[in-house]
């Protein structure tokens, strides 16, 4: 019964999405106020139906209704309640429903919070979002219905993939989807602005906070995914350049370019056309990511189902979205005039370079991700592109980006003097270099050029992010210099997060040490100044798995610093073996132990890692996210809307 109710709610949601797409868009074109007024209620009704539908799915998991095929395939009565709920989005059908639900929530949020926006413009934004919803919901109903019955019902379910039975999985997809799907909002704003024919500055101001929030969630989602891969996959790596990771990283790069370009458009009225294009690209790459992950063309943890029908549907949808928006763009964009002028040395020009570098970075990831697929499709052989490709392409593109991120905020809009800037920052260059060398020498005793470059760049970024604050403290009357808009605090925090991230990458990539050893109980192994003593293995009983649990005591200079208990789990239902690594985390270093295989006698093969500063990578991601949210909370976006709404409503109806 619950499943049928969910299915019914889903059908209603699709109908409501169609209403939400058709009436407001047609009403805006034909100037029918009654039709335009449909937009907000329809958007909220759609979100409500989706919420009901999603609740029904979760409920089917909670009560172990194995007559629902999706539940039977991905849950089990022995699975703990928390993972039964998380299992709702643990595979294809449910995760697409989550996607649709989050789109519904974003849409409802737009209908609630943009009260000051003109009715016509809001109607267009909601109409475009409705069109996207129609596509996704049709996809669910026609190809991936989570409410299909399986009769007769099996006595118990197939259980959730053990890799996904983890806290990281429970929170990673919803956060990532918040970001992915959130890109639909700036996209809808851009399309609505193109439809209305006048790209003025106001639409940039409206889409900025939405873009920032979506970007923050995307940042959080990617950070969580990286953290999960680190401790769950048992290989000690934090980024694998896996095509699925790339699928989330490309929209992130594009969205990062977009938030910078939106700043220029809002502040200076420049780059209008370019910003619109970036908004289209960011959302298109989100959809491309969905295609790559959902169609089964890629092979990874995330590729749940290999159904060509689904792939074809998403591909057609992707083509329609990109084709239609680029067509609209081609018709409308040439009429837009960019009046703003700027000097080659100005903040605008630096942000332009930022945008070019980010887009090039995204394009290089796209190339590396799609090239093997294209070759395979053309029958030219099966290849794969290894992580070294991404490393060697990515580093040269992003290095100048990091250096420029330092000076960008210090350069004035319109025109600045390079000599003035140099006077301002010349001390920071030797300071960053010295600090990097000192840290490398004191902390690790040895240093190499790459790590030194990472550390120096990080110090440079951190110092330049703090420099404006220091100057304000000195020049203006003390603490009052710190009274700055939230947007400025947000930017500083995000750039500072980038610096923290770079420290993590530089230090952990270079100073991490690992050993694969064979240990019998009582044996110990030395690694990176630590002694890992293996005390043997005992049996451990979990709710739906049994495990061998190893006990390792870790000593440094004769003192015990940690006891680690990695597990080798055997999940009873799927009959899968899973490595559960044990980690002693710390800001300075992580100690990481993973059990390999049992060998003769009581010996085990064991993987040991000492990873300095690896936590800084995710700490940096969290700081960036916090910076984005802080910037989105800027008062400007709330007060400015009311005043900006008037001229646009004139433009939009004219």
């Amino acid at each position: 019964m619950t499943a049928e109710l969910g299915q019914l709610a889903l059908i209603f949601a699709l109908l409501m999405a169609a209403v939400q797409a058709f009436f407001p868009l047609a009403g805006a074109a034909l100037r029918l106020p009654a039709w335009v007024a449909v937009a907000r209620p329809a958007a909220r009704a759609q979100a409500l139906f989706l919420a009901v539908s999603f609740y029904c799915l979760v409920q089917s998991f909670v009560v172990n209704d194995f007559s629902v095929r999706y539940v039977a395939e991905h849950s089990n009565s022995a699975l703990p309640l928390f993972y039964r709920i998380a299992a709702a989005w643990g595979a294809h059908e449910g995760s697409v429903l989550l996607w649709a639900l989050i789109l519904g929530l974003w849409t409802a949020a737009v209908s609630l919070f943009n009260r000051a926006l003109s009715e016509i413009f809001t109607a267009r934004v909601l109409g475009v979002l409705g069109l996207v919803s129609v596509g996704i919901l049709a996809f669910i109903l026609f190809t991936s219905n989570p409410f299909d019955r399986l009769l007769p019902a099996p006595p118990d379910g197939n259980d959730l993939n053990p890799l996904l039975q983890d806290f990281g999985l429970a929170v990673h997809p919803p956060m990532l989807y918040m970001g992915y799907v959130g890109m639909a909002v700036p996209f809808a704003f851009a399309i609505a602005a193109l439809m209305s024919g006048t790209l003025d500055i106001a639409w940039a101001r409206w889409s900025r906070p939405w873009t920032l929030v979506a970007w923050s969630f995307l940042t959080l989602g990617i950070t969580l995914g990286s953290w999960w891969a680190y401790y769950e996959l048992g290989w000690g790596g934090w980024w694998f350049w896996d095509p699925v990771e790339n699928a989330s990283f490309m929209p992130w790069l594009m969205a990062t370019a977009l938030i910078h370009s939106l700043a220029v458009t809002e502040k200076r009225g420049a780059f209008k056309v370019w910003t619109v294009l970036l908004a289209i690209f960011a959302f298109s790459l989100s959809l491309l990511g969905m295609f790559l992950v959902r169609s089964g063309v890629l092979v990874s943890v995330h590729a749940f189902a290999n159904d060509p029908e689904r792939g074809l549907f998403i591909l057609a949808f992707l083509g329609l979205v990109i084709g239609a928006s680029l067509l609209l763009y081609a018709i409308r964009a040439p009429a837009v005039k960019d009046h703003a002028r700027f000097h080659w040395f100005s903040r605008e020009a630096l942000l332009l370079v930022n945008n070019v570098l980010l887009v090039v970075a995204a394009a290089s990831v796209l190339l590396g991700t799609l090239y093997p697929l294209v070759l395979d499709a053309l029958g030219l052989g099966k290849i794969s592109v290894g992580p070294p490709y991404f490393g060697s392409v990515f580093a040269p593109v992003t290095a100048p980006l990091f250096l420029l991120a330092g000076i960008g905020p210090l350069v004035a809009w319109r025109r600045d003097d390079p000599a003035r800037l140099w006077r301002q920052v010349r001390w920071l260059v030797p300071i960053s270099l010295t600090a990097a060398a000192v840290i490398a020498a004191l902390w690790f005793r040895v240093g190499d050029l790459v790590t030194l470059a990472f550390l120096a760049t990080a110090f440079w970024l951190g110092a330049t992010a703090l420099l404006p604050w220091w100057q304000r403290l000195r020049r203006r009357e003390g603490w009052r210099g710190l009274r700055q808009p939230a947007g400025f605090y947000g930017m500083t925090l995000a750039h500072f997060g980038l610096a923290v991230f770079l420290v993590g990458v530089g230090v952990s990539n270079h100073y991490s040490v690992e050993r694969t050893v064979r240990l019998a109980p009582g044996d110990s192994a030395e690694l990176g100044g630590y002694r890992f003593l293996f005390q043997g293995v005992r049996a451990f009983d979990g709710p739906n798995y049994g495990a061998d649990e190893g006990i390792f005591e870790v000593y440094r200079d004769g003192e015990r610093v940690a006891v680690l208990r990695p597990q080798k789990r055997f999940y009873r239902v799927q009959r899968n073996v899973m490595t559960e690594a044990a980690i002693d985390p710390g800001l300075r270093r992580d100690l990481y132990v993973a059990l390999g295989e049992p060998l003769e006698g009581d010996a085990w093969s064991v993987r040991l890692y000492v990873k300095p500063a690896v936590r800084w990578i995710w700490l940096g991601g969290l700081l960036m996210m916090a910076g984005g949210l802080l910037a989105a909370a800027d008062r400007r976006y709330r007060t400015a809307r009311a005043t900006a709404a008037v001229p646009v409503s004139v433009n939009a109806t004219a």
Partner: protein
Amino acid sequence: MTPRQRRMLWVGLIVAGVSAATFLALAAFQKNLLYFYTPSQIAAGEAPTGYAFRVGGLVKKGSVHREPDSLAVRFTLTDGAAEVTVFYEGILPDLFREGQGIIAIGRLQPDGRFQATQVLAKHDENYMPPEVAEALERSGKLPPVDDFRRTAR
């Protein structure tokens, strides 16, 4: 800057960026492309000995041998028509089992054995790497899919 100059700056920057990226990408591609070969192709002498590639197949039952005092292991990969012996030193992935489809990355030695630097087994035991499935299909040895699974998918 006039709009025209700025447009030229735009175009110039993008062209420069794209050509630099293309150069880097092509250079990196040269070194980092991994081709896939089946045991049959290796037996037919189609695989190169000079550089690394991937080989995939089923782990032959009863072929896994471990050295008693080290982490060295050897096993036989088969696609039904031909076999290749793989040498590896280290920890095999959780889902590595006899009869399972896996992929090994490494180099073919002049004496015909395959020295792997990495062994990959995927996360789902019912999963078969597509290259392996295709290779088995070509030799007509694709094992039947479990019935519950088939109806479930």
